[in-house]
């Protein structure tokens, strides 16, 4: 059992290292210039050299992301609970939510910039719009799918609607909420970076665009590496949060015998 687990980690790691090695050797042996494709070691060196600057820009991107994601969570939970509690609200909003998902949010960025300026606000709004849908729908659906007998049990105790939500519907729908949040957390960083491309004076997207315009490809790749790391960080944070909040872990949550 332990051996397979170890092997499961070793295999993808060695494939990745193999690919990086081929890349490194290919660039070195064929003499491809830096402005076309930098070698992995060059990227790593650029990453280390630029780390203070990268971290400064990352802190801005991360603030936009975390603020946007937090707002998305609040918005998603409120809309999901409203839709679940009042069926007419669901009927009115659900189709609109689905339709808005056919609009690629990023094309709205220029409009947001017109109204909200060049600061953090339009980026946060983009993150909110990108992230709230993947949380809202699974969370609302999971609340609606809670065992009606559990709700009846609470009703038979004379529980008000509020208690049905806090004791049964919300805790029961939390695993779905977290799987939605995992998807959103992955989107969130890219949402912030792409909206920084369009207009900004700071942030990873801004940095990326600047080094790209200077043909400093090693730094472009270094910033890509940073984006990947931040996305992993967001994903890990959500995993940690779900482990802290979901008691007992999701896989043990069977329905009653």
């Amino acid at each position, binding site marked *: 059992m332990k051996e397979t687990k170890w092997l499961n980690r070793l295999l993808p790691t060695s494939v990745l290292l193999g690919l990086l090695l081929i890349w490194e050797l290919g660039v070195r042996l064929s003499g491809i210039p830096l402005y076309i494709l930098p070698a992995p070691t060059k990227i790593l060196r650029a990453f280390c050299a630029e780390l203070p600057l990268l971290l400064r820009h990352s802190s801005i991107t991360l603030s936009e992301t975390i603020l946007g994601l937090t707002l998305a969570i609040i918005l998603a939970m409120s809309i999901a609970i409203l839709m679940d509690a009042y069926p007419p609200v669901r009927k009115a909003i659900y189709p609109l939510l689905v339709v808005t998902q056919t609009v690629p949010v990023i094309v709205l960025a220029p409009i947001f910039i017109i109204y909200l300026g060049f600061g953090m606000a339009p980026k946060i709004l983009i993150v909110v719009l990108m992230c709230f849908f993947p949380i809202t729908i699974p969370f609302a659906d999971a609340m609606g799918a809670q*065992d009606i*007998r*559990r709700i*009846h*049990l*609470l*009703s*038979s*105790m*004379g*529980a008000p609607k509020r*208690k049905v939500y806090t*004791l*049964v519907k919300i*805790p*029961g729908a*939390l695993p779905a909420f977290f799987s939605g949040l995992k998807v959103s957390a992955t989107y969130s960083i890219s949402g912030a970076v792409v909206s920084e491309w369009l207009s900004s004076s700071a942030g990873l997207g801004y940095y990326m665009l600047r080094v790209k315009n200077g043909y400093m490809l090693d730094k472009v790749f270094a910033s890509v590496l940073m984006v990947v790391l931040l996305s992993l960080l967001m994903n890990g944070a959500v995993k940690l949060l779900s482990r802290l909040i*979901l*008691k*007992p872990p999701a896989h*043990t*949550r*069977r*329905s*009653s*015998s």
Partner: protein
Amino acid sequence: MKLSAEGICIGYHGEPILRDFHLQVNEGEFVSVVGPSGCGKSTLLNLIAGLLPREGGQVLVDGTEISGTSTRFSLMPQDDLLLPWMTVLENVCLYGKVHGGLKSLQWRALENLATFGLNGYENRYPHELSGGMRQRAAFLRTALCPADILLLDEPFASLDVITREDLQDWLLQMRQELGRTVVLVTHDIDEAIYLSDRVLVLGGRPAEIRLEQTIKTHGRNRAWLFAQSDLRQALYTALKEGRDDF
């Protein structure tokens, strides 16, 4: 507390299930309602508990009419319905989480855990419990509600024979300690004879009481139950006729 249901009417998809149905349960009495599957016995219980809207009639507790759900009743459903995200202690104290007074209820729960065979399991989660333990936890949750009348809806139906007999023995002991009015819905004739002061057999459509049997004895045990062949036969015949008239 005395429970009475008078002139109860309810239907399902236009078909009457209960029509002008009467039921009377005296204070401290243990009444079992036996009937074939689908005859409306669970419907009757859910209707008393206020979970189903009745089309006519009244539910009275000590002469006062009850409409909708009421804290006078404590319902134990067929499945334990323990909430998987709560520990055993949190589950059995669900009433306190709904209405407040959680601390004192937790003290009472902890005092009672041993009686319910759950000692040391207070901080475990439901998935760590056996079927019998889950059912006992559900029963403790029901008993900890300050209700005067317990409504038990086939509480042991999903258990294996041995566990079921254990829990029946245990419920028989608990009857004295609880000292509450109980309505038990079951399809098990032996369970009804073993536990109750009075057995009602429901049958036909709309359902009506086909047989009413009072059981008076002081020494209930398995040997006594085994010897009740006449009573069992009478209940069985009424049950079968009731099913044939569906």
